[in-house]
């Protein structure tokens, strides 16, 4: 008997179009989807907290822990978060902001498995996870993992706190059929759709569920037409995998927009703009265009001799006769040792005139 997966027969380009369209639609109506998410999470017995900054999220969790008398936390990435505000801060920042979501599993310590033993998790009062997607109509979060540590951290402790950037919202449960397929070359090993705390007829799950929706500079990115597309990112890492340069560097330069102080790093210049990242992106973010737009940001503009060289270059390029004269000078006085970009013996325009045109 032959079985054919329906998913594998779907054309990826159709999926990418669909994914990009859904993301654009959510971002254009984010105010509506935030309200809808809160409504549905509440209807399922959970609680939504809006955090302006990572520090707000950290403060909320510490306050919650104090109120509930919780001493031990576990996170989906790190297990020893108790009484260490900075560790908690790093965890939240990573879960909510950078490539922490799906890639979190790969960044864990090799001995993590032991730390995620059930006893440790049960002893923890609060389990903190990220969310790959926040599903508005179900009031749920979706975790996609290769292992099941996030699932364990969400289910065993009494309180489950999920931290998600506001851009992680997708409208409907059925949209997961599009996004989960694009998240990785192979389907994630563990997919959990978690909504609200444990019901009375359920055997396990947390007693309390809190979804922290983190702004963390995202509304500012949303307001900036040149960068807005970045919020379509589903943190799949395809751009990193395809980049021929130093992928973590430049694409990291973009994701740094999502962490304080919300400015890209000078690494945006360290790209050849070859376009591989944009081609690879499953939600069709025009990454090379955004890299160029960021280079035009005053804070990242070229400085020093490079800026002066480009000013000089423009001065020459606006004056065809000066341009030609300098070309002649370069030919006449080119040091023999400089082989790389040695000018040709005659320029095109000299040769063209020589042909009697």
């Amino acid at each position, binding site marked *: 008997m032959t079985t054919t997966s329906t998913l594998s027969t779907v054309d990826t380009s159709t999926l990418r179009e669909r994914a990009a369209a859904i993301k654009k639609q959510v971002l254009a109506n984010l105010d509506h989807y935030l309200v809808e998410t809160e409504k549905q999470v509440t209807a399922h017995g959970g609680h939504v907290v809006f955090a302006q900054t990572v520090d707000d999220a950290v403060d909320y969790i510490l306050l919650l822990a104090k109120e509930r008398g919780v001493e031990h936390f576990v996170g989906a990435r790190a297990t020893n978060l108790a009484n260490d505000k900075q560790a908690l801060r790093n965890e939240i920042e990573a879960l909510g902001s950078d490539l922490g979501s799906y890639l979190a599993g790969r960044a864990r310590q090799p001995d993590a498995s032991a730390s995620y033993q059930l006893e440790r998790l049960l002893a923890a009062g609060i389990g903190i996870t990220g969310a790959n997607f926040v599903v508005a109509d179900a009031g749920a979060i979706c975790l996609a993992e290769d292992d099941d540590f996030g699932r364990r951290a969400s289910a065993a402790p009494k309180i489950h706190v999920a931290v998600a950037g506001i851009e992680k919202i997708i409208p409907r449960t059925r949209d997961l059929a599009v996004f989960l397929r694009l998240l990785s070359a192979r389907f994630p090993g563990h997919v959990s759709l978690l909504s609200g705390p444990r019901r009375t007829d359920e055997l396990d799950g947390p007693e309390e569920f809190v979804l922290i929706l983190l702004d963390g500079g995202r509304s500012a990115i949303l307001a900036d037409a040149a960068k807005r597309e970045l919020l379509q990112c589903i943190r799949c890492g395809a751009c990193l995998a395809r980049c*021929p*340069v*130093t992928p973590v560097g430049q694409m990291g330069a973009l994701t740094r927009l999502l962490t304080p102080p919300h400015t890209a790093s000078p690494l945006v*210049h*360290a*790209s*050849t*703009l*070859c*376009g*591989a990242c944009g*081609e690879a992106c499953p939600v069709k973010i025009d990454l*090379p265009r955004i890299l*160029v737009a*960021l*280079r*035009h*940001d005053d804070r*990242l*503009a*070229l400085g020093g001799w*490079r*800026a002066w060289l*480009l*000013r000089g*270059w*423009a001065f*020459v*390029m*606006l004056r*065809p006769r000066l*341009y030609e004269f300098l*070309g002649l000078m*370069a030919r006449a006085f080119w040091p023999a040792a400089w*082989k*790389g*970009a*040695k*000018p*040709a013996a*005659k*320029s*095109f*325009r*000299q*040769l*063209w005139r020589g042909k009697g*045109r």
Partner: protein
Amino acid sequence: MAKRVSLFVTCMVDQLLPKAGLAMAEVLERAGFDVEFREAQTCCGLPAYQAGCSSQARAVGSHFLNTFVDADYVVVPSTGCAGMLSRDLPHLFPDDPSARTAAQTLSTRVWEFSRFLLEVAKVDSLGARFPHRVTYFDTCCSVPAQAGPRTLLQKVKDLDYVELDGPPECCGFGGLFRWHAPQEADAMTQKQMSRILASKASHVVGLDVGCLLQLREALERGKHAVQTLHLAEVLANQ
């Protein structure tokens, strides 16, 4: 009356690889076009645009606009410059509606050389002959494999076409990239050079002069006999 085509040879072809420009003119004439060269032309503005120097890019972009505003077709031998002119030129004038409109109109008349042959001139064979083993290197800003130049190469008589192994990848040129990451640039070029050498081709053909010069320098430094050629040089050969 034959249609008129304006060459924009780009500053790099003008100064560093003029034979690619001459070959392009020859092929276009053979395809039945009147070819003109406007002496006021210099650069498209790409270096400043990519470096984030808006005002310099705008100034040089305006110069291009003024030089070619009444051209019917502007044909460009470099994918990088063609991309700048057909895609990004209007973005240089966010606050100047009349310049932006003019740039939008002109940008639709700018053609990269191989696309012009296939889509406007609608010729894929011009009687070229090139009895060598040739490979094609997918050049700048065009990571998905380019079908057009392969079609054109495979129509060339006696040409033994060989494909490079693996997916297309950047050569490491990238304008001012070397300023920011010289070691990475070298590593990328070496990697692409290995792919080219593995193909055992005697000639590697490309459509962006930046990439071709980057590869040529690495091949010469490594004392390899492989020649770099612009597609027009192969098509002009008879």
